[in-house]
């Protein structure tokens, strides 16, 4: 059975996590998303809305993450994996104080899951003050450091350069301004084969300029050391990288999101195929192409 992608949506209270998740549901493009929602959340996602968008939800009644005694979140993911059929993807809206890295760690540990990424949502108007707060600042910085992609909300009212600089000082993860959490779901899920019903062209053209994509293909086995170097040090702005690489030792499935690289054994192929994606303006496909040429040059 193929791995189910798990997307972690983190960020402090009021960052806009619920808006982003709601948007993903509305633009799911035929993917069956299963959303884990916190039942005590200040703004609950309406289960009806989720159902209307073709998704499903599991409500958690207990948002505490302090100890294993309340491992409800992990077990809810287990319940999702036990469903038949399994969802195409699982989305977890983390509670406002949880460290998204601890949830992402589950996707990296559990053989039935793959990590679709950790998206930390940041309220551009509030982030400076939050980071300066002596009580909560360090925890906010931890959420930002855990991100594979930073989504800035509340960007419609003024300049966001200051917020962007604060974030860049914490992590090189790509930043994407997305008022009301409107980001293109294909950036998060588009590379996954687990979306058989997805329309060939996105139904939401206004997003088309949100991300840039690169694809690479090589018919012959590649030198192992060079391809490994490329996978470990991709160009700036890359959010996800997926495909198969074949070297002298065999074929492996590649799944990179943010800084997490997962290589798993795969059925033997003769060549290699990779797809990369990142936010426009941050990710330059030509950089990736140059590195690919270097790695694959005879």
């Amino acid at each position: 059975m193929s791995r189910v992608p798990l997307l972690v949506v983190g960020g402090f209270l009021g960052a806009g996590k619920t808006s982003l998740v709601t948007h993903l549901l509305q633009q799911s493009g035929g993917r069956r998303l299963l959303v884990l929602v916190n039942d005590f959340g200040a703004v609950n996602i309406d289960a009806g809305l989720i159902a209307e968008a073709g998704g499903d939800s599991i409500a958690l009644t207990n948002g505490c993450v302090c100890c294993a005694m309340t491992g409800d979140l992990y077990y809810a993911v287990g319940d999702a994996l036990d469903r038949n059929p399994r969802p195409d993807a699982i989305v977890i809206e983390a509670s406002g104080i949880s460290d998204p890295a601890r949830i992402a760690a589950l996707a990296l540990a559990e053989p039935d899951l793959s990590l679709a990424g950790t998206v930390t949502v940041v309220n551009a108007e509030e982030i400076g003050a939050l980071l300066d707060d002596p009580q909560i600042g360090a925890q906010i910085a931890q959420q930002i450091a855990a991100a594979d992609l930073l989504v800035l909300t509340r960007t419609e009212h003024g300049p966001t350069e200051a917020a962007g600089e604060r974030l860049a000082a914490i992590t090189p993860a790509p930043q994407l301004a997305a008022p009301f959490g409107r980001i293109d779901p294909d950036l998060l899920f588009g590379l996954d084969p687990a979306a058989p019903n997805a329309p060939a062209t996105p139904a939401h053209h206004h997003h088309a300029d949100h991300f840039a994509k690169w694809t690479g293909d090589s018919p012959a086995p590649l030198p192992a050391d060079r391809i490994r170097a490329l996978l470990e040090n991709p160009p700036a702005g890359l959010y996800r990288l997926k495909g198969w690489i074949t070297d002298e030792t065999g074929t492996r499935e590649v799944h990179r999101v943010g800084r997490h690289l997962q290589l798993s054994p795969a059925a033997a192929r003769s060549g290699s195929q990779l797809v990369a994606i990142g936010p426009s303006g941050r990710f330059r496909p030509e950089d990736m192409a140059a590195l690919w040429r270097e790695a694959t040059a005879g």
Partner: protein
Amino acid sequence: MSETIIYTARRILTMAPHQPVATHVAVRGGRILAVGDVDCAAPWGGGRIDDRFADRIMLPGFVEGHAHLMEGGLWRYAYLGYRDRQAPDGVWWAGLTTNEAIVQRLRDVPGPGPAIGWGFDPIFMSDQPLSRADLDRVSADRPVAVLYSSLHVLVCNTVALKMAGYLDGAEVDGLIRDGAGQPTGELREMAAMFPVLRRLGVDFRALTGGAAVLAAFGQSARRAGVTTTTDLFSAQTEADLAELQTIVEGEDYPIRLVPAIGVTEGDPVELAAMMARMAAKSGPKLRLGAVKLMTDGSIQGYSARLRWPGYVNGAPNGMWNTPPATIRALVEGFHSAGVQMHIHVNGDEASEVVIEALAGAIAKGGPRDHRHILQHGQLMDAAQFRRAAELGLGVNLFANHLYHFGDQHYALTVGPDRANRMNACRSALDAGLNLAIHSDAPVTPLSPLFTAWCAVKRQTASGRVLGAEQAITVAEALNAITLGAAWTLRMDHQIGSIETGKFADFTLLDQDPTEVDPMALKDIAVTDTVLAGRVTA
């Protein structure tokens, strides 16, 4: 009119100031009719003398103000702790001090299926770290897993590692490897543990609720002499309240239960309305209406929020499980609605934030008889206790920590001087506060006499005395595990002392805690408990 039974005891320590010692207690209709000598019931027409406790010491039933239902759930697995411990079914399980003994006990777990153990605590063990190789000696074809007492770590055998795909060279945070790069079997934190737990069918959620867990919890408490206790971060919902009511209010259920509903966020107005609906379902044995709030984490896990100078080993400050702004909003909302709050505060920054939040809320009005309780309060200093007293708060301090984690606190977490003032029962009483002390079972074993011993002797597992100046007397400790804890549950008018009119809840001991060497407090045996006049079993 129901029958009057007059129980005779060698001595009754009533905890009532006007008559601290007696020899007889008359019970009618589940309540105390009279206390005194053999003639105490004469004005009421006398009664039938019951001498079965004639050579026992009787105290009011103990009250454990901070425990969790999970205490009743873990016993379905093999007990592997260092200290002897009695299971809910009454069987005494000897403490295990070597890896070999652990292997032997796990071999005895009936198959087929996984062999699972719990309660293992490496800080007490002088043996080599328990490893996959040890557990492979339990079985080469059954999965085997050992849960640490903290539940944050497990060790498993090769079969279990293989089931989770952990032998395929996976790079997983928390999957510990030896010098040669091979997994040792140790898995740290839930993300790494979960793939094994899931495949072995270990569901923590099933350990914290349901009829079997409730039954075991009741027995576990009764055997420790506890007649009233809490589930202090309850996930109880209104929808399944009827089942809980039926079980707890049943005549055979051996304890009174006070669940405090866990809250970390949400609209306090809506939540207060829900609490009022739940409170209306309270009966003589099941009490609802209070909430439990979380703030920081734990000191030994370095997740408690500390004031300057922080952790002595340089670890960064801990984490909030509820951010301060949310704590303030919840505290204000619940206080103004008259909902009693039990608030988890381990580090002294957490207690400071909560005290200030309560001060702000109380200044705006709301009930004067709120009885909000600071739970754990492990690093509160004298000034915080005085401030808490000014606000009419109560404290329930984690005395058992002094023994179980005191050496770690001294050496690693907060250093000698602050370790010496941890769980400062003396300062709390001197500030005029109502004091309770607790086990946080299953974090540490449920046993109020052991908890009292901790508050009196303040000894760590290695025998070091932490802050002798913060010790309290045996009498004060006995009050803390009866009337003091009853106050924190808003039940001191009904339980906690042996006085006319109160529920006839008693604990019988084989020795007098006020006469033994205080060092022996923890070794006194609980022989029986009585709930509402009925001897429980």
